[in-house]
């Protein structure tokens, strides 16, 4: 497709469950970002990949959060032992390493109950 695709669109997890969120970036986009958007807040940076290399993971809130992009295209954000404060929309964006080229996906809304 032409845009950034994220799946699932909605995920309900029981507290303590592990979840995996997928991002399919625009083909050829070198850079990939994950953001977390809590209700009433702006998106907050989690992590950044350039191709398969994770160049910045300073925004990951705890060691329960893990992201990978093994072949430099699709990326997965994994959250282990989910907690209620993990409830948020998780946004993925890709870019051809151009400040003007960020394209966001529609996000995955995670609800931890």
């Amino acid at each position, binding site marked *: 497709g032409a845009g*950034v695709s994220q799946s699932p669109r909605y995920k309900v997890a029981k507290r303590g469950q592990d979840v995996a969120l997928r991002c399919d970036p625009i083909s050829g986009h070198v850079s990939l970002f994950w953001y977390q958007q809590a209700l009433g807040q*702006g998106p907050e*940076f989690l992590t950044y990949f350039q191709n398969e290399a994770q160049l*910045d993971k300073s925004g990951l809130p705890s060691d329960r959060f893990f992201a990978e992009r093994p072949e430099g295209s699709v990326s997965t954000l994994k959250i282990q032992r989910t907690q209620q404060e993990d409830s948020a929309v998780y946004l993925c964006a890709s870019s051809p390493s151009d400040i003007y080229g*960020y*394209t*966001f996906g529609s996000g995955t809304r995670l609800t931890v109950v």
Partner: protein
Amino acid sequence: DQQVKQNSPSLSVQEGRISILNCDYTNSMFDYFLWYKKYPAEGPTFLISISSIKDKNEDGRFTVFLNKSAKHLSLHIVPSQPGDSAVYFCAEGGADGLTFGKGTHLIIQP
């Protein structure tokens, strides 16, 4: 402490009038400032940006002004249209990531 502040959670403007959205920042290191627009259940979409070496950038109905001495950014939309109703995020950053404000919900009234 927030690096990018949007102090108005919401703004209501009559259709046809000018909408002015404001943003303050604390970190002068970044080269670019951007505005994103977000509809419910969609990701943010890029609207307009400005380089830190400029003080104004215009694109159709949208103009962004940068006051570096005041560390203040504003987005002007004129004339405002019903389709402009959305949440607007101010962001700063570079090619390796963006820092967003909390957003301002713009409501255009008929």
